[in-house]
């Protein structure tokens, strides 16, 4: 009985989170209306105009950049550790990778601010600017979407990698052998037998990584430049949902601003919860054994 009550504490915590978020963020959202809040691109505290679009945009762009960078590296790393490297390398390397996951995000932010941003300012961004792509234009100030995306990529790398490794371990050895016995090279066996089988699980891992990127606060706040604008260039400073909450919540000038910030939190909460539910269901289905991923 006592145990059941304690167990249910998790459900109570979940209920409290939802209730409190709705209480502080709900009225403001209801007043403006979800759609006009989301599509409004102006955030001006002095005029009490609160639009969510710059933050949604910044969150999506930085997370997108992070996924683009982290996914190939994570999957490559997971493949290297499960399919290619000798077992000794595997056990040596797994420790630093787990270290990467344990470093507090404010320390990543510190590193991003004083190492990555100067590096981007010169030479990386001027070099990228030579491609003349519209996403690589403007002043190379270092602080901006690109910096945030790179830091995020580093931070979600261990998340995706560790789940991808777990997923790859569920691939039956007999499939690998089937491909090899047909005269496949190791890579061809991975491509024809291993990756198709692991695909669903890797998608789940990616979604969990994305969930982490969307909600990551400190490191992004420190390198994104904190400007509530929408720009096409990755060099430009921007803002994200968690970053604006981190910066403005404590010093919010009134109930209006607090409400708007909490509404942003509510949006972020809804998106990450949905993403996590979907991802967990996927990863779970894969873990449950030879998942009928065929369909």
């Amino acid at each position, binding site marked *: 009985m006592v145990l059941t009550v304690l167990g249910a504490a998790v459900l109570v915590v979940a209920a409290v989170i939802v209730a409190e978020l709705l209480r502080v963020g709900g009225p403001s959202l209801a007043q403006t209306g979800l759609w006009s809040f989301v599509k409004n691109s102006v955030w001006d505290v002095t005029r009490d105009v609160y639009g969510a679009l710059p933050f949604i945009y910044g969150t999506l762009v930085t997370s997108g950049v992070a996924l683009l960078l982290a996914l190939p590296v994570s999957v490559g790393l997971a493949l290297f550790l499960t399919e290619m490297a*000798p*077992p000794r390398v595997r056990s040596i390397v797994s420790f630093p990778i787990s270290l990467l996951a344990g470093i507090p995000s404010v320390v990543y932010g510190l590193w991003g601010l004083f190492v990555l941003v100067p590096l981007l300012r010169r030479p990386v961004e001027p070099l990228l600017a030579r491609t003349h792509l519209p996403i690589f234009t403007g002043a190379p100030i270092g602080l901006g979407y690109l910096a945030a995306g790179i830091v995020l990529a580093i931070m979600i790398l261990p998340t995706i990698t560790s789940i991808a490794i777990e997923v790859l371990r569920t691939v*039956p050895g*007999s*499939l690998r*052998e*089937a*491909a*090899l*016995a*047909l*005269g*496949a*090279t190791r890579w*061809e066996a991975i491509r*024809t*037998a291993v990756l*198709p*089988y692991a*695909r669903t699980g890797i998608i789940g891992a990616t979604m969990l990584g994305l969930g982490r990127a969307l909600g990551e606060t400190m490191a992004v706040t420190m390198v994104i430049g904190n400007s509530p604008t929408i720009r096409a260039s990755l060099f430009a400073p921007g803002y994200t949902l968690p970053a604006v909450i981190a910066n403005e919540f404590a010093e919010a000038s009134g109930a209006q601003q607090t409400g708007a910030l909490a509404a942003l939190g509510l949006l972020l909460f809804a998106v990450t919860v949905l993403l996590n539910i979907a991802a967990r269901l996927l990863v779970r289905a894969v873990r449950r054994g*030879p998942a*009928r*991923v*065929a*369909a």
Partner: protein
Amino acid sequence: MNETKIEVQKLNAWFKTTHALKDVSLTVPKNTVLAIIGPSGCGKSTFVRCLNRMHELVPGARQSGKVLVDGQDLHARRVDPVDLRRRVGMVFQRPNPFPTMSIFDNVVAGLRLNGIRGNYDEQVEKSLRQAALWDEVKDRLQHSALSLSGGQQQRLCIARSLAIEPEVLLMDEPASALDPIATAKIEELIHDLRATLTIVIVTHNMQQAARVSDATAFFYLGELVEHGPTEEIFTNPREPRTEDYVTGKFG
């Protein structure tokens, strides 16, 4: 008999410290069927896996001695295991079709891997007919391989191996998961395939060994106890251990 296809000289194999094969030497003439028999754990699978260099893929596995196919040492520098495995196909104990692929794609998987072009439709039909599966699946080639029964899956795996037209086919207890009808079909298939390939088949079933093979090798605790024409092994073995085994006194 005709020319030698496979020649094994003083083959030893280990898993870390387990000595799984001890000084095995034998030859397999071209276009014949060799049956490997012996109690569980005696090294039958290890032996066939040495013939297409699958053994070396197991972490901690080692081997010594020589295996020659067409007179060429498998471990010679010029031999690429990838190319070798295309020529020496393998069917495993448990059916292992690619679960994410259709029946059709499973059959052509080896062709695609090896970059062999041609009329895939024709090749699929030919291989599936050879594996006695065509009539059962011809109307649902695009269905998932997992929609087949265990026995059908095993025949699909055989078709997959045959599609790349190997010279040697290694079969590790291919019928252990099959019902008598499917087993009979596979035995018939082995009989027909002899015309074009050389076959090494591992089996626990004495009658099956007697029915399909030209020669039989009896393994015990990693040693090759006796090897000779199948009829002799079953009717007039030289070794008492062989006699005990084939008459069912142990194992």
